[in-house]
């Protein structure tokens, strides 16, 4: 019975010219967004590889010089684009793509794509995630608002119920019918998406991205099911299809356009972050505290004299300037960890607030999950920033150790290619899917809660279908 109802729903929907036009539009939109995403990803990834290689070559080809000069010469760390960023670019356009790794400083990520945009582009870009999470729900609303309200107005609901159709079967059939109609759009769109992903194999095999892509699909499907259930509930509850449509459009508008902005603003208001200038000034103030540095260096000297069992620094067999440089690094690192750590904690708090705002609308948890699985959320950005900073600290250690071990105080000292090559190449792997899911665990819970609540609502609203 359920399948009979679903089949009739699909036949009716397919014969509706408006639906066909809408389906083609949605499909064209997702195809365009996948194509744009694919192009953007390929371009950026190619540039990324070139730039990474260039910075490495520059580093290796430095002429003989003092290792500390080499540390100042520095290099760039480029953030690799995750492959699924072609589905959801997340915060990528708003955070930098590269950091200058140099002596003494943890620099902020620079070169934000959004900086180069015109004002109109700031309204958001058309990514596949937007097409799926914003446009498709509109399609679901339009395909299902008449499900019960329309039949009630037409009078066919009386006819159906007079036949002795169980409302449970009717609801299941309607849901299945909407799902099937939706499938007619989702399946080809997914095929296009997979093709777009498959067209990027020049940057490595796809296998690593399969679990992420699969989970992404599952989360999107749960989200769609939620929207279908809400639409059916409203359609069963509303007196007329017009009322159902108005309510559902209001929900769609709030869910897809208002809530995201409002939640981001709320999160920023709850956990304000300092301005870039405030942040830098506070950090500089601490870094410029010379007194602390003097105390630390004295302690180092004592340690060294104890270790080598001598009574004068002149008798210590290593160059103290290397030790002193490294001590400066260590101390600065503590300051960086405290300040950047504090800043990042603030962002994390904002993220948590944003995630919990997901109680207000299903869009928020699915958006968080979408970015997390695409590898373009803040947690992934922080992970990369931390890795780049670790790498920078590694460079400093290698350079300063060399100075301490091989140079003589007062004498000019240079090192060459052999030392530059001691610094390994910077490689960054995207964390695994389970890590990403753990970061976004509250969102998984909230999305599931939304789905269950929406299904419960639909079951309740349709338990007694009024015909009059």
């Amino acid at each position: 019975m359920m399948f009979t109802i679903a089949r009739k729903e699909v036949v009716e929907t397919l014969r509706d010219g408006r639906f066909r036009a809408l389906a083609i539009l949605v499909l064209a939109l997702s195809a365009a967004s996948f194509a744009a995403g694919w192009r953007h990803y390929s371009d950026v990834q190619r540039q990324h590889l070139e730039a990474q290689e260039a910075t490495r070559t520059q580093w290796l080809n430095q002429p003989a010089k003092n290792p500390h000069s080499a540390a100042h010469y520095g290099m760039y760390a480029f953030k690799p684009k995750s492959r699924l960023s072609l589905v959801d670019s997340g915060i990528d356009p708003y955070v930098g793509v590269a950091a200058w790794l140099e002596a003494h400083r943890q620099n902020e990520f620079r070169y934000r794509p959004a900086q180069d945009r015109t004002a109109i582009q700031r309204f958001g870009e058309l990514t596949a995630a937007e097409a799926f999470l914003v446009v498709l729900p509109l399609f679901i609303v339009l395909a299902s608002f008449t499900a019960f309200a329309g039949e009630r107005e037409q009078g066919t609901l009386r006819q159906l119920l007079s036949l002795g159709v169980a409302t449970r079967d009717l609801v299941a059939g309607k849901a299945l019918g909407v799902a099937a109609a939706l499938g007619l759009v989702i399946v080809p769109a997914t095929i296009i998406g997979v093709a777009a992903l498959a067209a990027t194999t020049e940057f490595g095999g796809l296998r690593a991205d399969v679990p992420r892509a699969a989970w992404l699909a599952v989360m999107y499907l749960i989200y769609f099911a939620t929207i279908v259930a809400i639409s059916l509930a409203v359609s069963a509850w509303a007196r007329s299809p017009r009322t159902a449509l108005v309510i559902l459009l209001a929900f769609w508008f709030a869910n897809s356009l208002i809530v995201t902005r409002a939640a981001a603003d709320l999160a920023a208001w709850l956990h304000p972050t300092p301005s870039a200038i405030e942040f830098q000034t506070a950090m500089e103030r601490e870094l410029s505290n010379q007194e602390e540095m003097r105390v630390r260096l004295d302690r180092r000297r004592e340690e060294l004299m104890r270790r080598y069992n001598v009574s004068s620094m002149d008798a210590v067999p290593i160059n103290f300037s290397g030790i002193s440089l490294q001590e400066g690094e260590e101390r600065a690192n503590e300051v960086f960890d405290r300040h950047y750590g504090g800043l990042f904690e603030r962002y994390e708090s904002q993220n948590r607030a944003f995630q919990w705002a997901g109680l207000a609308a299903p869009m928020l948890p699915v958006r968080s999950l979408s970015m997390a699985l695409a590898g373009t959320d803040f947690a992934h950005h922080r992970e990369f920033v931390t890795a780049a900073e670790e790498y920078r600290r590694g460079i400093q250690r290698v350079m300063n150790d060399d100075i301490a071990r091989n140079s003589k105080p007062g004498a000019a000292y240079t090192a060459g290619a052999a030392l530059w090559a001691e610094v390994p190449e910077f490689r960054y792997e995207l964390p695994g899917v389970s890590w990403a899911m753990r970061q976004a665990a509250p969102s998984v819970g909230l999305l599931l809660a939304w789905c269950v609540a929406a299904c419960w609502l639909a079951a309740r609203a349709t338990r007694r279908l009024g015909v009059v």
Partner: protein
Amino acid sequence: MLEAVHLTKHYNGVTALEDLTLRVNPGDVFCLLGANGAGKTTTINLFLNFVQPSSGTARINGLDVTEQSLETKKYLAYIPETVMLYKNLTGLENLEYFSALAGRSDCTRVQLLDFLKQVGLQPEAADQRVGTYSKGMRQKVGIAIALAKNARALLLDEPTSGLDPKAANEFSALLARLSQDGVAVLMATHDLFRAKESGTRVGIMRQGKLVRTLETTEVGHADLERIYLEHMHD
């Protein structure tokens, strides 16, 4: 087959139906007559369990409709003033869908076409979309659904209003055939002539009460009209 026992319905303090007791046996065609608001449609809605009775019970085949709502509907077919169908589906597809939902998913295309032929739908109309149908054609599909369902009781709510005389006549003929087959029919109507022609009994309703029941064989057409008007006046 159809039985109302002290059936009463109030809507927000207004009495729509008061203490209705009637029985429609297999083969009976019981016509409910009365002005708008007399309680005819309420009676039918109560049998369909579309509204809950304030007191009393409605039974179909001995089963209480509020307790065994789905079970009682198996015996039932309902034809409203205008049979509502899906515009984007053809007459045949509508019949196929509704009879499948009524439990007759085993009907073949030939059988379904035969039902449409029995009710007098033009053969070429079967594959046309219902959006193009006249009211008479819709009513015919409605009866075809009842036939396909093999209903034992028929609830009709002014099924012939707005039909041209020929279509109304065909409708009555079908009704007579169903009644001969032992179907119990409860029909609400304004049409005294049709009631006398097709009905075996008529009931006159006024302000929610069944004020008079007559055997149609006992009265002539003129008598029926006179009695009806008498009840409407005072």
